[in-house]
């Protein structure tokens, strides 16, 4: 390893409160449970500018995606209509650095569920 891309650097989430605020705005302050929602993201981003993420939450009416380490955590919100074949979706997102991606689902019964995944954004270089 050892030759470098731009200054996209790793570190701990520095915008946790912004994420909490965004979740609270989505849930109206209701409690959020784990389980019943699956978030898939790569362990290491091949390119921090386009990181594939997919989320599935059976019984969800909408799912919000957040990037907890971006200056602005909001990423997207999927709202499912009557012709949705599954309560799932996939997209590609920008990650400024190593961080947790979080998905929060609003369920048909009004409850909320959450899942997270850590994506490493490395400056890269080298190899065998």
């Amino acid at each position, binding site marked *: 390893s050892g030759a470098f891309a731009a200054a996209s650097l790793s570190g701990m989430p520095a915008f946790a409160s912004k994420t909490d605020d965004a979740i609270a705005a989505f849930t109206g302050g209701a409690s959020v449970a784990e389980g019943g929602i699956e978030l898939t993201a790569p362990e290491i981003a091949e390119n921090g500018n386009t990181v594939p993420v997919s989320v599935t939450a059976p019984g969800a009416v909408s799912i919000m995606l957040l*990037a907890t380490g971006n200056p*602005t955590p909001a990423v997207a919100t999927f709202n499912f*209509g009557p*012709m949705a074949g599954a309560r*799932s979706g*996939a*997209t*590609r997102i920008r990650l400024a650095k190593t961080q947790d991606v979080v998905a929060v689902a609003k369920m048909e019964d009004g409850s909320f569920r959450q899942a997270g995944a850590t994506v490493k954004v490395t400056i890269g270089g080298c190899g065998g």
Partner: protein
Amino acid sequence: MAKGVKPRVKVPKSAAAGDVITIKTLISHKMESGVRKDGDGNIIPRSIINRFVADFNGQNIIDVTLEPAISTNPYFQFDAMVSEAGEFKFTWYDDDGSVYETSKKIKIA
């Protein structure tokens, strides 16, 4: 209207009634985040696709709100129920007021 914006979609040509099919969509778009600066240090204004909607025969499949953290050339993959023959309609809404549309027909095999 932003230049060079081109939507593309992948939809099966046919399905059995009641099938769930996977749809993929891409639209070429810079997704200017509104935080980058130009050579003179001035902020380049935000210009993104802010909403994407997919419908089947007038009924909604998925309605997505996009933020600047969505990558250049926004990509979506999702599943749709095919109850009958008909037409999928895909709509992208640009910050600048432009609306881009495309549609695909599906047969019942």
